[in-house]
Every structure is written in C-alpha cells, then in structure tokens.
C-alpha cells in the first residue's frame, strides 16, 4: 500500500516526532539510548552519545549522533569506560579511532524513536558487525540457507 506508507511518512513529519523550532528535549530522557530507525522503521542503532560543536557566540550545536562502543565508553565512567574503550580499539575494523557518526541533519524525527533519513547504501555505523557477518558468520556451514 504505497499511498498508506506515504501518508504515514507525512504524518511523521507533522506528528509528535516532528522537529520544529521551539521544541525542547531532555538529553537523558528523549535522546540518549533511544532506538534509531530509518524511514522504513528498520532499526539502525541506538543513540550512544551526541557530538556538540562549540559556538563562541552562542550555545553548542548538536552536529551528530555518535554510535557504538567508542561512543558509549565515556558515559560508563571509571575503569569500565577504559576497559570498553580498550576492547573497542582492539576489535576496531573501521576507519579511524573515533566513534561512528550520523549527521544530525539526517534526523527527521524525535519521539519514541529517533528517525533518520539514510541513503540506500547506508552508512558504516556497524563496521565490526559488517566485518563479522562477512568473515565469520557468512563462512559457517549452512550460512547460505539462513532465513531472513
């Protein structure tokens, strides 16, 4: 039902998820750890942290959603943070040492979930997961017959 899907997307743009000037959020309640989904409601990741850009003439601006263990580690505090960061560095297969980021300009809605408009080819937010699927899971006997 393409028309119904289009109607649902239009409702999202003007509904409770809509981002409009003046709307306010609690970082802890509305953003951190929220599920991120794409335009077709497919889960993408969770909001592990936010990137803030300092502005000398005003308050900091949110520029990206940080995703993955490298983003989560600083929030855990103490030895747990350092341990997770060390494990993440050891297992890292993505480019660079920083966390994966989703440009905040792609965030189209904030509500029960954080909705993002991702390109078809997606972005490499789960480099380790992708690598494991291709190099470990995909090579298991019978992997070709997995459903879904």
């Amino acid at each position, binding site marked *: 039902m393409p028309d119904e899907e289009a109607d649902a997307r239009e409702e999202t743009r003007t509904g409770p998820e809509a981002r409009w000037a003046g709307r*306010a959020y609690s970082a802890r309640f509305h953003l951190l750890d929220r599920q991120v989904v794409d335009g077709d409601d497919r889960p993408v990741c969770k909001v592990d942290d936010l990137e803030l850009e300092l502005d000398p003439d005003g308050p900091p601006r949110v520029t990206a959603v940080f995703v993955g263990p490298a983003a989560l580690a600083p929030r855990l505090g103490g030895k747990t943070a350092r341990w997770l960061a060390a494990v993440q560095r050891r297992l890292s297969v993505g480019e660079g040492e920083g966390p994966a980021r989703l440009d905040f300009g792609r965030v189209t809605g904030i509500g029960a979930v954080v909705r993002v408009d991702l390109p078809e080819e997606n972005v490499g937010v789960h480099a380790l997961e992708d690598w494991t699927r291709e190099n470990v899971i995909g090579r298991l006997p019978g992997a070709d017959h997995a459903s879904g």
Partner: protein
Amino acid sequence: MRLADLMGARVRDRDGREIGHVSDVRLREHPAPDGASADTVLKVEGLVVATRVRARLIAYDHRPVDGPWPLARLARRAARGARWAPWPVVAAHEPPDRLGDLGTVLLVVPGAELVPLTDVHHGWNTTPSPGSGAG
C-alpha cells in the same frame, strides 16, 4: 566536544566552589540558517545541576510530575535542591584528564544565584503546537 563530557560533570561556581554535578542537559530546536540541510538546528539550552552528592533525580528532572500524588511527591522530593543553569551562565568546560573521569563545568555566577529547577520546569510539560515558539 561530546554530550558525555557534560553529563555527570562537576559544576563549580564563580568562586570555585563545587556545587553539584550535571544531571541532565536540556536542548532546544532553533530555526536553521539558510542553506542548511534541515529546517532546525538543535542547541544546548542549559544544564540541570543536582546539588546533592547522591541525587539521581530519578529521571523526573526532564519535566514536572503532576500526578498521581505519590509519584508527584516523589518527583518533588527528587528534584529538591536541583538547580537550573542556562547556557549563558556557563563560562567554560574542562574535559576530564583521562577517559572515564569526570569533566568540570565552570559558571560565571555564584551557586546561590542559580534558580531552583522546580521554579523553571513547571512549563516543560506543555506541548505547544509547532510555530508557537514555546516548549
């Protein structure tokens, strides 16, 4: 800079006195400048400062709780002592020396000048229509 640098950070007032820690960060949508990829940009509006060492504010600091009365009473008790620090009173932020430690937020005012959270967050429950500019 990351949000995690602010969350939980120690808060020191103008006189260098530690007055609490950042319990939450409030953000607000602003009209985007021309040519931006989105209609709005999200900016930090201010910090919720928990002044008690073990205060967790049990997640009720993002808005007031009107009822039922046991929860409202619990929420008022949890928010007691919390202060609101709008971003203009933040002078600087010092990141932690090493990963996992707490950063420090420095204010330009004495701690006593910060208004109680319960005095300012009574309007945070309202959900005005888009374009009304409140929230």
